[in-house]
Each structure stands twice: as C-alpha cells, then as structure tokens.
C-alpha cells in the first residue's frame, strides 16, 4: 500500500483474510485497498458481508463512511452514521456536513436559507470554510438564461458566466440575420441569399437558446462538482 499499488494490496489482504478471517486490521486494510483501487463497491459488499447490521467501531465507521461517499450512496452513508457507536456527536456532524456538501442539493435552495437540516458543529475548519463558500454561490436558472437569450442572443450565456461564448452567439446570429436582411431588402422575397441566411440565423438563434439553457445547467453542475472535490480532499484519506 505504501507504493500505491492498491489493486495488488487488495489481493494480498484478501489472502491474509483467507488465513485469518477475523483479523480486523486486515479487513480494514482490504476495504481501504478496494476504495483506493477504484473498486469501492467491492469494499462496500465486503463490509455488508462482515457486518450486515451490527454497530460499527470508529475505524470501520470512518472507512464505511468514506466508501459510501466515494460510491455516492448517501442513503448508505446515513445508515453508517446510525450504526456508528463510537463516533462523537461533533464527528458525526462533521461527516454529515461533508455528505451534505458532496450531495450537492444545496444549490437548489435559496442562498439565505441554504442550511443543512442538522446542527453544524463541525470541528474541521477546512470543512467550515467550504461550507461558507456555498453561501457565495448563486444558482443560475436555466429558464432565466433562455429568457435572456430570447431578448438578446448570447445574453443567457453571459448570465451563466460564459461571456465569450455569449458574444460568439451574438456575432453568429447578428451576422447571419443581417445578411438575410440585406438579401431580402435588395432582391425582395425571391432572394436566395435572404432565405439561406435567414435559415442560418434561425438555426443559430434556436441553438443559442438551447446553448444558454445548457450553459446555466453546466454552471450549476460545475459549482457543485467543485465543492464536492474540495470536500473529498478534506474528508477522504489516501
């Protein structure tokens, strides 16, 4: 494990457990090896095989919590917290705060009432710092982005902090629409240029609406991902 060969380590710890099935240190190391070798589901299955419903010791609780968070199974994480007998209230609060940050549902709540359902009494200053960052993140509404782009092409992307893409959208729509206008004003309704550029302008305009919606959605996803990664860096050990 010191050389970070976790897959090989998992095989070795499995062999140790074959010789001594009740070696708790080997069990813990096997779970950790599974988690670090990108096989957390295997680790979770082993844990449930060994301890289907019994209360977990502190070491196993911490490993199980990390496994559940790595998998992204927050219901399983809740059951681990319920079963962890040795974790103090502050420790549980720290982990629950971490899970709340990683789950990412906070972005759908209004900023002022963006609080978890439990009391935040974390002892970890880094986690509290990340928690305070969520207060500064404003969710971007995809509907608002589309509405803005309806009025001015590209405005929805600018609203979602993609100002360069917004300007490009405006340029594409404006250029093709202007060319269409030129064609129609010069040759009337029979202008081929007018119809071609009119079609292009319509396509770019509709795509700009779609792109604005996508841009706002991606902004929200990226913000929750950033917070999730920062929380993982604090909570998940290597």
């Amino acid at each position, binding site marked *: 494990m010191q050389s970070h060969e976790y897959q090989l380590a998992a095989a070795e710890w499995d062999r140790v457990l074959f010789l001594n099935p009740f070696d708790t240190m080997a069990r813990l190391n096997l779970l950790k090896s599974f988690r670090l070798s990108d096989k957390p589901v295997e680790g979770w299955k082993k844990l449930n095989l060994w301890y289907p419903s019994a209360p977990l010791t502190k070491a196993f609780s911490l490993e199980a919590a990390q496994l559940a968070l790595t998998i992204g199974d927050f219901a399983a994480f809740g059951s681990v917290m319920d079963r962890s007998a040795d974790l103090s209230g502050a420790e549980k609060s720290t982990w629950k705060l971490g899970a709340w940050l990683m789950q990412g549902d906070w972005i759908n709540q209004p900023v002022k009432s963006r609080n978890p359902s439990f009391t935040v009494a974390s002892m970890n200053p880094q986690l509290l710092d990340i928690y305070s960052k969520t207060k500064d993140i404003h969710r971007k509404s995809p509907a608002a982005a589309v509405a803005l782009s309806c009025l001015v092409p590209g405005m929805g992307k600018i609203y979602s902090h*993609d100002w*360069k*893409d917004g300007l*490009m*959208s405006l340029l*594409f729509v404006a250029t093709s629409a202007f060319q269409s206008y030129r064609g129609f004003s010069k040759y009337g309704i029979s202008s081929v240029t007018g119809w071609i550029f009119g079609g292009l302008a319509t*396509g*770019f305009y*509709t*795509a*700009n*609406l*779609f*792109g604005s919606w*996508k841009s706002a959605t991606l902004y929200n996803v990226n913000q929750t991902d950033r917070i999730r990664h920062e929380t993982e860096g604090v909570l998940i050990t290597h």
Partner: protein
Amino acid sequence: MKWKTIISIFIISAAFTFNAPAQKAPDINSFRNLFKPAPGRPEYSLKIDPKNEFRLILTSGFAFYKVFISSQDGVRCTFYPSCSVYALNTIKMNGIAGIFDAIDRLTRCNGISPEKYHIHEPTQRFYDPVTKINR
C-alpha cells in the same frame, strides 16, 4: 485525337490495369493491424443507415464529409470528439434537440474559452463529450 482525350484514355486504362499494383495483397496484409488505434478514439461508423429519410440524409452527409472533405485536412477542430462526430452522436442520442446542440457546438468551436474544458490527453484537444439532454 485531342491530347485531352489521349490523357483521359490513358488514366482510365491505367485505373483498370491489375497487373502493376504498387503493392500486392500479401504485402498490404502483412502491415495490416500493425498499429492499434489510440485508446478513446471516436466511436462512429460510416455505415449509411436507411432506416428513415432523416437518418439516411444524416449518415450519408456525415460519411461524405468524413471521406471526401475531413480526410483531406489535418485535425482542425479544437474539441474532442470533433464537431462532426459530436453532431452525429448528439442527434443519435437526443433526436431533434441534438440538432441545436450540434449548432451550438459549432458556435463554441473557437478555442477562446480554454478555461471551460479539460484536455483530452491522447488527442491534446478540449474534451467536450456528448451528454444526454434531460427533458
């Protein structure tokens, strides 16, 4: 006989000459599969799909573009997968909405927003995969 006709006949007859290939089939076969494709190469097929008119037009246009136009140029798209592959895959995955996704991708294909994308290591281009549009 004009010289244009002579050259045309020469080219056409040369095209149907089977006795003087630059390489024979065994030579070519010995070099087949020498290089494996790089991992993560674009997953697309040039097969023309006549299931319906829309698919027929799309797959034919894509195959024509890939064989006759795109192949004559180097890598020009700033993204991985390239805009044409992205368009094909997003329309396959998302239907009509994929058309607008593809046009939106064309407007973003300029390389002025490098901070938005990760780098796709094998191709060293911006990674912008096709995603399922939630309705």
